[in-house]
């Protein structure tokens, strides 16, 4: 244990892991309550296209991915709100076409393909000092926005029509949440990778919902599950020399299944 914590790269990994877990923990609560798991999975796969744009243009892939994912999230929302295409179909279309765009752009810029593995499956051990700072800033902004507009997000999640009748600008709240979701996905992508990131946005919230009697309790539990999964997953990955992304998500899954078992027993 001491040995793990004494290495600088593990310290950084653990620090970023905890920061990102707090973000995904709080966002996960609303992903689960708003039944947005599938849109989360869609946006996270779209991140592949966003990262590829970064590789292709030479701009920092995290920035292109944030912009691309936010645009995709809003695109899905607009297409399905117009009513011509159902939401699941529009997620499916955006998701697949973004992956295709990514594949095309990557094949055009062969020299960068080495980094690609890190984006797809996560590379928490290769976190740079700059990325630690970015994740701290994102954490302050995302968690700050959610807490500032907690009433509005909560009521809109409970029932959109009641929220509108109470004078809450529901569409603005929903748009803000979609952008928060896109940013959280991109920032979590570094930890567990594009393929697994949606797990961090679903499992903590779903676990917390099993026991939650109110919102604050659910947020606290969800953040706790996310932090515990990341920390324990990292140690397991170090001990047994396995991929951290996989071990973090499997740890989270194990916590969820244990919680489900305890809940059923009661």
């Amino acid at each position, binding site marked *: 244990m001491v040995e793990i914590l004494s290495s600088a790269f593990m310290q950084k990994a653990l620090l970023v892991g905890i920061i990102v877990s707090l973000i995904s923990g709080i966002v996960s609560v609303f992903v689960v*309550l708003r039944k947005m798991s599938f849109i989360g999975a869609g946006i996270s796969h779209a991140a592949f296209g966003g990262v590829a744009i970064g590789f292709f243009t030479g701009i920092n892939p995290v920035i292109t991915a944030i912009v691309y994912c936010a645009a995709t999230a809003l695109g899905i929302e607009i297409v399905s709100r117009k*009513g011509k295409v159902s939401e699941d179909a529009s997620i499916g279309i955006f998701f697949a076409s973004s992956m295709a765009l990514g594949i095309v752009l990557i094949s055009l810029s062969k020299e960068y393909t080495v980094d690609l593995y890190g984006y797809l499956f996560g590379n928490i051990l290769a976190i740079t000092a700059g990325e630690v700072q970015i994740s701290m800033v994102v954490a302050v902004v995302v968690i700050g926005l959610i807490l*500032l*507009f907690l*009433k*509005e997000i*909560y*009521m809109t999640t*409970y*029932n959109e*029509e*009641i929220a*509108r*009748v*109470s*004078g*809450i600008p529901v569409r603005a709240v929903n748009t803000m949440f979609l952008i928060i979701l896109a940013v959280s996905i991109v920032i979590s992508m570094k930890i567990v990778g594009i393929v697994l990131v949606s797990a961090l946005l679903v499992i903590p919230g779903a676990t917390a*919902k099993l026991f*939650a*009697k*109110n*919102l604050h*309790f*659910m947020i606290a539990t969800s953040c706790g599950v996310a932090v515990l999964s990341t920390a324990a997953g990292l140690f397991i990955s170090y001990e047994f020399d396995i991929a951290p992304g996989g071990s973090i998500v499997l740890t989270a899954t194990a916590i969820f299944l244990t919680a489900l078992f305890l809940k059923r027993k009661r």
Partner: protein
Amino acid sequence: MKAVEIKNLTVRLNGREVLNNLFLSLDEGRFLGVVGPNGGGKTTLLKAILGLIKPSSGDIRVFGKSPEEVLKSGRMFGYLPQVSKVAQDFPIRVIDIVMMGRYGRIGMLRWPKEEDRRKALEYLTVMGIEDLKYVPFSELSGGQQQRTSIARALAGEPKILMLDEPNTGIDVIGQGDFYHLLKGLQKRFNITILMASHDIGTIPAYVDEIACLNYTFHYQGDPVGALDETVLNDLFGKDVDLLHHTDICEKCERLRRV
């Protein structure tokens, strides 16, 4: 003052005309029952008044203001959507739901104050559910859930209470009590109530006015006349048997003799 005034209202949803040429004039403090078959446009009418649906033509005034203006202020209506529209497994306690009713008054970037807490508790007491304040919503009976939702709607101290099929999920015995309770609220707070329901048999005994809606209004006014056979045929189609809620149910007696 007129609480709600509607002229010439027509609403189309997805290309289909749902409401046609409605006129309505409701005085402040009255209890209006909007009855009619499912799919007859009751919910659409309520939503148009609330400003949630834009009419294709006609004019709606709520205390002299347009629904858009009213929606922005967020203080005019206490609204109960149909029960099925609210997630049953949402992690929320009774007190949290009632406090939600204050959000429109509290406003953005502000937090509930002592007064908001006091009001929330006050309306819990009015609805007789103060002992349940820390109980999760999902653990309540249908009747308790409706009382909680009404406490939430009242907590915003609205001028108009809009109820969409509020008797769903409450057993038949409880329904009479429920309407009685609404009647009491109307008198106590001098609040205007608009209630949509398909329960045409019981409602006339409790409301001040009734409007029979199926695509257009087939009857408006005194609740007693709404039970007229021609109105009911217009509303529900032919071959409608009405079960009057009296001490002795004539229809049941007749059926028993057959």
